[in-house]
Every structure is written in structure tokens, then in C-alpha cells.
């Protein structure tokens, strides 16, 4: 089976749109995830990163209206019956969230929450399920798993809760793991450990990973390809190397300028001026125009489309930054982030 679909994408989003109470927050997302790849999704808070994947899995509240297409190996998920989605969730596509401590059920033991996933997706029960759950807890780095199997969420730290969330996500042996800002709520050293864990697990299991973050630095450690989102649209898409050596969308560039340097001379960070627009009062043209230093009258006529570029990236900007000439690359990030 793997042979016949080896070249096809695992997941394809086409023209995915989401509106809450008539206010559109996602304006037609086109996105492919290939088998086994690690894709980054970056953008400031409120750009629609979470909504994209919650919509794809049918996890948005009933008031959300979702249109477009979400295909898993060619099978349409958008608008499919609940039972189909329930099989996909956790079994084919798993998702972990930003706040691990409140994402685990406080009144059910950790063991129960993991074995539950094993029962649904792999039919494991009783001792077999417990053995497998302990193996997963061990795999994500929970020390002394056997003793802690019956403990509850509040008896674990935030970082351990995220490890447990990951263990639970792995229980269904998914083909794709969506990690929605998995380290945002954690402090720096724990963040690094969780990133390492995700990188290791992805390599070991061969699953694809969509890593959602507002932190380009973290994305560059985990992913090969990056999509930059702004105000419900993808504005630039390319390989990590392409975007890091030569960001072309002014928003991507702005995100780079805001990355704290880990080494080298301390330079002042340049934050992007202004804030993400409210979806209710989006500018008529390019949504980034009010914050952009390259904006012209043309930018304000209609939103630029995401178009393929010669070097293989995709870009949605009327006046993109010139492609940096090789060798003259202005280093905006430490060497080690570029590998």
C-alpha cells in the first residue's frame, strides 16, 4: 500500500475557509503535507494556524462554518460523517495542543487516558494495553512510568504533561502529528527537550509532522519546509533554507528580524510594528499593508494571490524583497539554526 501512494501527498487542503458567526477568519488555505515530512506553520497569534487544523479534523465548535476540501490520501474529510472523522482523529492524524496541563483530563488517571486511545485505535485492552502504554510513556521520557501510571494530571509538571500528550498521540500510530505550539507554555530548557523529543520520534516512527509555532527559530530546528501565515492566508511557503537565506515576503522578513539571537553580538530586536488585524475589519487589499514598509496604492486594491516562484517557493506579495544573491546572504540567524 505504501508503494502505491508513496508519491502522493498524505494530506491536501484545498481552498479551506472558516467563518465564525459570519466573520471569515480563514480565507482559502491550500496546503499539502507529504508522507513523513516535517512542515512548519508560523505566524503571529491569531493568524489562523490552529483553526486550519482544527477545521481539518472537524474539531471546531458548531458555530464555525467550514468550506473547502480536506483530503487524506485522496479521501474527502470535509463534511464527512462523524464516524469517519472519529476514525481519522488519533488513528491517522493526531493533534497535541499548546497548554498541556489543561489539555489532559484532570479527573482521569494518565494511564486510563493513554490506554483509552490504545483501545480505540489498536483494540488493546487490559494488561496488553497497560504494557503498551508503559512502553509509550517510557519512549517519551517519563521516568518511572510503572509507578506513575495511575497518577493524575496535577501530579505531573507542564513539560511531563506535554510528553504524556505526545505518548497519547502516538498511541494511535498516526501518519501525521499536528503539534500546535507544543512548547509555547513551557520554559526554555523544557522547550528544547520537547523539540528534541519530537525530532527523535519523527525520525523513529516516520510519521509526518506539522509543527505550529510563532517561533521561527524552533521551526527551523524541526522542519524542512515552512508555511508563513498571516491573517488567515498563507503568504510565503518554501524550504527552511530558502526562507532563512532569503525571506521575500515583508512579513516573513519581519518575523526573522524579531528572532532573538542566541549567540554573537547582542543586537536590538526589531519587532513588526502594529498588530494582527481583527478579522472583522480586514483591509480590502493585502492584509499586511498597514504594517508593511513596501506598501503601495496597488497593494490596497485586492489581496495578492499565493503564486509559485522560479526557485520553487510560493509567495503572495506585490512588491517582494529581492532574492538575495548567493554568498551575499545577510545572516539573520545563528549558523547552527541553518544546520
Amino acid at each position, binding site marked *: 500500500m505504501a508503494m502505491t501512494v508513496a508519491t502522493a501527498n498524505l494530506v491536501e487542503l484545498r481552498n479551506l475557509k472558516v467563518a465564525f458567526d459570519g466573520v471569515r477568519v480563514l480565507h482559502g488555505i491550500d496546503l499539502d503535507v507529504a508522507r513523513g515530512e516535517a512542515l512548519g506553520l508560523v505566524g503571529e497569534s491569531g493568524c489562523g494556524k490552529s483553526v486550519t487544523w*482544527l477545521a481539518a*479534523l472537524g*474539531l471546531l465548535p458548531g458555530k464555525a462554518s467550514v468550506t473547502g476540501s480536506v483530503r487524506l490520501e485522496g479521501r474527502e474529510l470535509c463534511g464527512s460523517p*462523524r464516524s469517519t472523522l*472519529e*476514525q*481519522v*482523529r*488519533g*488513528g491517522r492524524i*493526531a*493533534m497535541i*495542543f499548546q*497548554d498541556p496541563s*489543561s*489539555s*489532559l*483530563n*484532570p*479527573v*482521569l*488517571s494518565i494511564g486510563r487516558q493513554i490506554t*483509552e*486511545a490504545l483501545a*480505540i*485505535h489498536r483494540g488493546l485492552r487490559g494488561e496488553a494495553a497497560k504494557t503498551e502504554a508503559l512502553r509509550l510513556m517510557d519512549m517519551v521520557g517519563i521516568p518511572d512510568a510503572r509507578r506513575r501510571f495511575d497518577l*493524575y494530571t*496535577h*501530579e505531573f509538571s507542564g513539560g511531563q504533561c506535554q510528553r504524556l*500528550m505526545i505518548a*497519547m*498521540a502516538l*498511541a*494511535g500510530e498516526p501518519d501525521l502529528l499536528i503539534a500546535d505550539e507544543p512548547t509555547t507554555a513551557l520554559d526554555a530548557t523544557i522547550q528544547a527537550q520537547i523539540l528534541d523529543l519530537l525530532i527523535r520520534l519523527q525520525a523513529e516512527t516516520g510519521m509526518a509532522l506539522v509543527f505550529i509555532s510563532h517561533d521561527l527559530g524552533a521551526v527551523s530546528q524541526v522542519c524542512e519546509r515552512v508555511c508563513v501565515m498571516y491573517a488567515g492566508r498563507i503568504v510565503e511557503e518554501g524550504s527552511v533554507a530558502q526562507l532563512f537565506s532569503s525571506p521575500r515576503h515583508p512579513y516573513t522578513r519581519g518575523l526573522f528580524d524579531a528572532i532573538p539571537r542566541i549567540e554573537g553580538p547582542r543586537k536590538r530586536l526589531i519587532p513588526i510594528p502594529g498588530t494582527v488585524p481583527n478579522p472583522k475589519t480586514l483591509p480590502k487589499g493585502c492584509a499586511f499593508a498597514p504594517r508593511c514598509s513596501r506598501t503601495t496604492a496597488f497593494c490596497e486594491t485586492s489581496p495578492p494571490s499565493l503564486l509559485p516562484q522560479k526557485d520553487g517557493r510560493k509567495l503572495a506579495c506585490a512588491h517582494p524583497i529581492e532574492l538575495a544573491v548567493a554568498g551575499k546572504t545577510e545572516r539573520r540567524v545563528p549558523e547552527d539554526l541553518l544546520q
Partner: protein
Amino acid sequence: MIRFVLVRVMRAVITILAVMTFAFVVLRMSGDPAEVMLGPDVPQNVIEAFRKSWGLDQPLWIQYLAYLKSIFTGDFGVSMRDKAPALQLVLERVPATLQLTVPALILKLLIGIPAGVYAALHRQSFADRGVILLAILGFTIPSFVMGLVLVLIFSVTLGVLPSGGQETWLHGILPTLTMSVGGVGILARFSRSAMIEVMGQPYIRTASAKGLKWRDVVWGHALPNAAVPIVTIVGFMVGSLIAGAVVVESIFSWPGIGRLLIVSVSNRDLAVVQCILLIVAGTMVVSNLAVDLLYGWLDPRLRSPASH
């Protein structure tokens, strides 16, 4: 866990002591049983003799100590009116009251909680709005009004149910209904808001995201969390199984604890009133204790030593 239980039991004992003391002082300060029992035209020496025979001529604190001592030896005093042991008089009435309050409690649970949970899971639907409206009506209408309305409909107009007395089980229907309406409303509203709160929590999204069926998300993940606040309210209801029927028993001439309490208070029948209050306080304290223990069972965060 043992510490948890001990702390709760100590609190319960202290609460009962406080209620006993309070009742004792207030009752004795608010009127002289001798005058009430014997009437206004009785000669002074008869009153003196009555006081002496019931120990009312002693200083208050000596009376109090004597009262405590007799309580701890299991002696709840004698009714000044019937000259029978107070405890026996009170216990005779308990079954009648429970005949109303227990079925009423069951109705409250069986209707209130499912209605609230259903409304929460179908927010903004017709059913949700209906539940909210009926719930508000249910607990804003005072029970004496509700009782009269039910009597008007079922006894006076339709003539299908008796309006008072305790002769057959049919007599219990109207008082039970009257008593359950408010509680159904309260439980429905409470269950609804508890459930809405829980359904918005991130762990519910996690449960859906891991592929659980909707039914299992609701039963397995949401309800156990919503149970904690609901249990609090149910605890109050269980605690008022004995005392909760005062108004309804009066409306429907039901010979339970409530009626006995009213008669005994107006007669200043000290031992009987104190005995009733003690039993009422006892049930409340015991149900609070049960609720506390249930909390610990339902919510692991409340049973860890860190929370004390």
C-alpha cells in the same frame, strides 16, 4: 485520605455543637414556655412549680450543662405538652416526611440533571431555551404559590387528586410535585452551566482529537468533571430531606416533621424543638460529610495532601 476524613469529621462535630448551643440559647431567650403552656390566667405559684419541675428556674448555663450531659447520655428530654420522650415524638414523624422528600429528591435528580445536561449539549436550540425558561419558573415560584396552583388545578378544577391529608398514596402526589419543582429547576440550571463550562475545556477537545466517540467524550470525559459542582447541590438537597418540607407539609396538612416543628415552636416545647433541630443539623452535617468524601472520590486534586 485518613487525615482528609478526620478533618471533615471534626468539622462535622463542631458544627453540630454550634447548632445545639445556638438553638438552646435562642429558644430560651425568646419566650417563657410556662406562660405559653399554662395560659395567661394561671396563678404565680403554679408557674413557679412548672418552672421548677422542668428546671427552668436554674441559671441558663447550668441548664445548658445539664442539657449537654443528657444529650451525651442519649436522653433527648421529654415533651412539655405530651409528656412523652421528645425523641420518640420526633422519630414517629420522620417516615411521613421522608414519604414526601425522598420521592421528591428522586424526581429532582431524574428530571433536573438530564434536562440540564441535554440543554448544555444542545445550546441555543429550542430545547435549551425551553429548559432555561422552565427552570427559572421552577425555582422563582415560591412553593406555597406552586402548591396552591396545583391544588386549584388537580383538586378543585379537575377533582382528581386530594388536596390534603395522608390517607392514601394519592395524597402524597401533590405535595411531592410541589416540593420537586423548585429543585428540578435549580438542578437543571446548575447541571447546564456546569456542563457548558466543562465542554469548553481543552481536555474535551483532546478527547475528541484522539478519536473518542461523541458519546464517550460526554459520558467518559465531561460528566465526571461536571459531577463535582452538581454533587454540591445534590448534597444540599439530601441535607434538607428532613427539614425541607415545612411549608409543603403545612399547605397539605401532612403530619410530618415540619408540622411538628411549627406546633412545637409556637408552644415553646423546648425538648421537642431542640430534638428536631439536632436531627436536622445531623442530617445536614452527615450529607455535607458525604459530599466532601464524594468530592475526594470524584476529583483527585481534592484528595492530594497539597490541598490541605
